[in-house]
Every structure is written in C-alpha cells, then in structure tokens.
C-alpha cells in the first residue's frame, strides 16, 4: 500500500469534511436566514471606533426593520398602500383619504379591526386580516417606497418630512409607537420584522446618540 497516498487522502477528506462543517452553502444560507430575522444588539456596535461609521452601521442594522415590507407597505409613494411580502398594490384598491384612513365609505376600518383577525376555511396563503387600533397610512411626505436606506435616513431626520418630530421623539416613536409595534406582531401568515421593538428602539437610540449619521445610499 502506498501509505503516503493514503495519509494524504485521509487528510484531504478531513479538509473537505471540515470545510463542509464550517462553510457549506447550507450553513451560510442558514446564517443569512437567521441574520435576516434577528437584530444585532446596539452594544455590539461599540467595537466600531469611528463614531460616524458606528452611527451608519447602527442605522443599517435598523434598516432591516425599516425596509421590511411590513413597514414599507404603509409608507407608499402613491395614495394606494401595498400588501404582502411581494409588496403588490392593496386589494381591494383602497386609497389614502383624510388622515391616511381611507376614503368616505371605504375606510381602513371597513375591513381592518383593532387586532389581527384570523380567517377560517381559506387557502393557506390567507390566514388573517391584519389589524391595529391605529391602522392608517403614513403621510405622503413619509413615503419610503422606491427610496434607498440613505434617503429614508435623511427623511427621518427632516422635521418637514417626519411629522415635525425631534430626534428624541423619533426614538420614542420607533421604540414605543403601537402601530410601529404591529410589525413584530403582524398576525398569522405574515413574517414579522426582525428582532424585537425594544432592540429596534435601542438601535435607533444609539444611532441618534452617535450623531444620527446616514448611509451614503
């Protein structure tokens, strides 16, 4: 037997097994999947020495929530909300109306309740009607559809486009607003936004404390 060849072969096998354990496409995909469903704690960004870079990184992490369909669908760039994970136009075709609560005779509350409502006897793709006491569209000046995270960041800081809020009020809104919180409790059949509202609030708070820097794009 050629022992040298055999040993090399075993070593090669181990290398492949080892690589398979650490770097298989499946495990990388799993990590990415987990990453998309969780938020890194605000404290974990302390290792970034540059305050500006840390601030940008904090907002980018918060962007996993902000740019999720659960949030963007009701920040449309037109008067019609979007719907679902694929962000299709809302059916029935409803429109903004006064206060973002729909048109006379077809307001949000015609169908949406104060809480998520399970439906019965339906296709697997329709498990509940979403609901919240404050259900309504964000004002048009807060439109996020079609904007980059950097553009949304600038928008959130601009009192003319954030409902006249101070940065402290932005932190409060993100951390405690009930309708924002719906994103983590969207009802059966809908993927929640990543992490928790508390973690999201801490990211926004740390972003503001670090200078509220925005991503370039």
């Amino acid at each position, binding site marked *: 037997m050629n022992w040298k060849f055999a040993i090399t072969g075993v070593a090669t096998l181990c290398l492949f097994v080892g690589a398979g354990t650490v770097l298989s496409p499946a495990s990388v995909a799993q990590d990415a999947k987990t990453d998309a469903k969780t938020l890194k704690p605000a404290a974990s960004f302390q290792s970034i020495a540059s305050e500006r870079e840390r601030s940008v990184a904090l907002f980018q992490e918060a962007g996993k929530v902000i740019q999720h369909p659960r949030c963007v669908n009701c920040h449309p760039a037109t008067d019609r909300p979007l719907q679902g994970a694929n962000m299709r136009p809302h059916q029935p075709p409803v429109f903004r109306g006064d206060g973002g609560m729909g048109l006379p005779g077809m307001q949000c509350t015609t169908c949406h309740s*104060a809480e998520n409502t399970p439906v019965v006897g339906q296709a697997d793709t329709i498990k509940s009607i979403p609901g919240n006491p404050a259900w309504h569209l964000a004002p048009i000046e807060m439109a996020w559809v079609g904007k980059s995270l950097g553009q949304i960041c600038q928008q959130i800081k601009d009192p003319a486009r954030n409902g006249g809020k101070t940065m402290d009020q932005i932190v409060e809104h993100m951390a405690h607003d009930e309708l924002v919180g719906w994103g983590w409790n969207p009802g059966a059949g809908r993927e929640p936004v990543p992490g928790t509202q508390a973690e999201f609030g801490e990211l926004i708070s740390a972003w503001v404390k670090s200078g509220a820097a925005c991503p370039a794009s």
Partner: protein
Amino acid sequence: MVTFTLNGQERTFDGDPDTPLLWVIRDFEKLTGTKYGCGVAQCGACTVHLDGMPRRSCVTPIATIEGSDVVTIEGVSGKEADAIKTAWAGLDVPQCGYCQSGQVMSAVALLQMVPKPTDADIDGAMTGNICRCATYHRIRAAIHNAANSMEG
C-alpha cells in the same frame, strides 16, 4: 356573552367569541339577506353597518362588537336608504343579485357621508364591492339618481 343591537333590537350571542358576525347574522339570527362571498373582505357581499359605518361582517369576530349597533339589509332605513331603494328599482340594477345587498349597504353609507357624490367619490366608496355580473354602470347611475332625488 356578547350583547349588541341588530336592526334596532337588543340581541345576545353566547357562542364562540371568534364567530364572525356574518355567521351570527345568517345562521343564528336567520337574516339571510347579507351574503357570504369570499370570507376575507375582498368582495363586499357581507357588508353591514356597524355603528353607522360600512363593515365587512365576514372578518368581524362577534366578540369585537360588544355594545355596538348592527344594521343589515333587512333593517336599513332613512332617507338615503329610501332613495337608494327607489333608484335601484328604477334602473333595475341587479342582474343575478348576489352582491346587491352589499352594494346597497355601501351605497347608503356613501350617501350618508357624501350626499352628492362625484364619480370619484362613488369609485372610492364602492371599489370594495365586486359584482360578477358587472352591473357597475347601473350602480353608479342609481347612486347619482338617488343623490339627485334627495336634493328636492
């Protein structure tokens, strides 16, 4: 136990609190004018008035209407309802008729909120009421006729 008013009469329901209002209206109260269409608030056939506002009864758990006032096609009344009824009959609006109780409830609610609606107002209010016979042109004309009749 849920207590509510149905067409002016106090009613109670002691079953599963998740039971949709539509089931209570049809199966327990035996008022079958309100129709089941889709079960997911996509068609409007089940429209009733809940505390004066149009509401899809198929996605309204009975537990959420404690103390509320429910009006169905059997009980809707007032000058807007009278005007809509006359206009509907005048133009012979329905074809198969299945969606029409929902159409009427939405149209009455629209006139209660907007007495002289434009085409855009009608589109906005009626967009959630689907008609498989496509009687939309007669529905629009009848709403205008009803509005005109209330002016005098």
